[in-house]
């Protein structure tokens, strides 16, 4: 059994059912993200784990102990909020030591633990400052230290990085993950930023409308989305219509050109299915004369070029609709000019069949 176990959780506010039968097991020391659009119930799930909301139905167990009806202050769970929520009247050291003081830890031990935590978050000399004397990023690190100081069983973070500027957001991601690994603490991280979820997590839970649509490692979620929602919510996606020729053999045609998919298709011959492509699996052939007869190649015209640095995002117009593709920047290969006639190629094994 998992260390943190959420079983068939449901939560309604009045007639509004916000969480609908949510199951999740988190292993000890695992980092799991809840990812989903605004209003899908991520915060509500987290608040039920923390004890700020009581589930309408379902159970929450930590290390085999049923905590569903324990009060928040009896659960020994650390929480980090989007708005930092440091106590403004206390110094950084007093903030970090707050939980220890309540737990009745001796002054000497508290001081030692606070010093350890401040060193861990890289702010060893800031103990005497007040929260208003810190930057947002520093405040959030202090909030993390405060949550971790009493050695909680589980750490919960609700969009802890959303209030910070882009640069600090990215560096803090790595820092949080580092600290989490060092302490081996079981963690649930809520975000609506897919890049955050994919880059930090052992596993990602993609949520939609109060349900977990898919749970899996980032690689799995990105490359093998189980539902159309997951495919479209995580990453950029191009969709194409294809006509099924041979369901068992995985053969379809796209714009009249044959394409073989590696797996059988759950549709009848002659039916139309949706194919999805990530921008990075589409290749651009600038010299259309090079393409030999019989190769799969969609004719296209360059509609937009966005130079992002390491990556160049190109939008190309085809008879099947607009397709986005990513090229790696190379100093010897300038991006194609607008309006150029090109061909787009991709392999059957890179295609996601949408259910």
């Amino acid at each position, binding site marked *: 059994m998992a260390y943190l176990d959420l079983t068939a959780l449901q939560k309604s506010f009045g007639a509004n059912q916000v969480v609908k039968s949510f199951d999740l097991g988190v292993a000890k020391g695992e980092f799991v993200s809840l990812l989903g659009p605004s209003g899908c119930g991520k915060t509500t799930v987290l608040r039920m784990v923390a004890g700020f909301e009581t589930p309408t139905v379902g159970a929450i167990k930590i290390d085999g102990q049923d905590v569903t009806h324990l009060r*928040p202050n009896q659960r020994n769970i650390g929480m980090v*909020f989007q708005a930092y*929520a440091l106590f403004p009247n206390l110094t950084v050291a007093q903030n970090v030591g707050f*939980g220890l003081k309540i737990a009745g830890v001796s002054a000497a031990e508290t001081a030692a633990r606070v010093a350890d935590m401040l060193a861990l978050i890289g702010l060893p000399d800031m103990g005497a400052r007040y929260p208003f004397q810190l930057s947002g990023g520093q405040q959030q690190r202090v909030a993390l230290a*405060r*949550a971790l100081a009493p050695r909680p069983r589980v750490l919960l973070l609700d969009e802890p990085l959303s209030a910070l500027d882009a640069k600090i957001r990215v560096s803090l991601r790595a820092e949080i993950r580092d600290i989490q690994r060092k302490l081996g603490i079981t963690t649930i991280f809520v975000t609506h930023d897919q890049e955050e979820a994919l880059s930090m997590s052992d596993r990602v839970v993609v949520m939609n409308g109060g349900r977990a649509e898919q749970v899996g490692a980032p690689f799995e979620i990105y490359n093998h989305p189980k539902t159309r929602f997951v495919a479209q919510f995580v990453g950029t996606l191009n969709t194409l219509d294809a006509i099924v020729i041979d369901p068992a053999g995985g053969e379809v045609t796209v714009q009249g050109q044959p394409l073989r998919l590696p797996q059988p298709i759950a549709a009848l011959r002659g039916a139309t299915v949706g194919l999805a492509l990530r921008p990075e699996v589409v290749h651009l052939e600038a010299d259309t004369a090079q393409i030999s007869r019989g190769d799969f190649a969609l004719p296209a015209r360059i509609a937009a070029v966005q130079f992002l640095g390491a990556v160049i995002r190109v939008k190309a117009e085809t008879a099947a609709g607009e397709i986005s593709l990513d090229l790696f920047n190379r100093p010897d290969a300038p991006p194609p000019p607008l309006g150029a006639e090109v061909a787009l190629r991709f392999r059957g094994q890179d295609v996601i069949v949408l259910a």
Partner: protein
Amino acid sequence: MKRILSWAAIAVGVVYFFLPLVGMLEFSLKMRRGEYSLDAYRSVMGDPQFQATFGYSVLMACLTIVFGVLVVVPTVFWVRLKLPRLRPFMEFITLLPLVIPPIVIVFGYIRLFNTSSWLPLTGSALGTDFLLMCGYAVLALPYMYRAVDTGLAAIDLRTLTEAAQSLGAGWITVLARVILPNVLVAVLSGAFLTFAIVIGEYVFAALLDRPAFGPYLVWAGGNKAYEPAALAVMTFALTWACMMLIQLATKFSKHTRMPH
């Protein structure tokens, strides 16, 4: 032209407000014939009745403040956190003491808590003192409520509470260690206002027949010549000192300054 007029208006206001004060101050210094002296003040200070009533009222003021804080802070906290729909109702309730004359309130008290009632508070001095303190707390409620409410509006009440709870704090700890320290300035300004109200209050103390400073002021006004002026000046000074303390308290709260 407009400037001159507005300066004239201010001048009239200042004269209207300060002239009586200056007159009173001047009069309070003239107890000794032919020269200014502090004799009236010395006489007041030496009066054992002054010492007794003033001491009594200061004590009552302190008790009222403690009682008011203990009642108002948790109530406002709970309403803001859990029952925000009740806030307009609270606003209304806390305005009532400004609308209902104190004489009505105190007659109500006497009817409800007289010696032949179910709770005969007026039967003993201590019971009457308690009743008087409750009455003072009611009189101060509009100010205390607003001060605390404004203070709580300035902090992120819900998140701070939840942060403290997740760190193991129960309700008492949340209130004592997180909420109260962060609204201390607001509470202090409410406290000084309460102090000023209680020190000068007459109706409650007179009708409940307690030896408070207000009735003493009135008695002195009817029976002495120079001392009432000295007393009035002292009361004014005390009230202004309270106002200044509110300002100071606001200034010295170093952590409530926000960076943005």
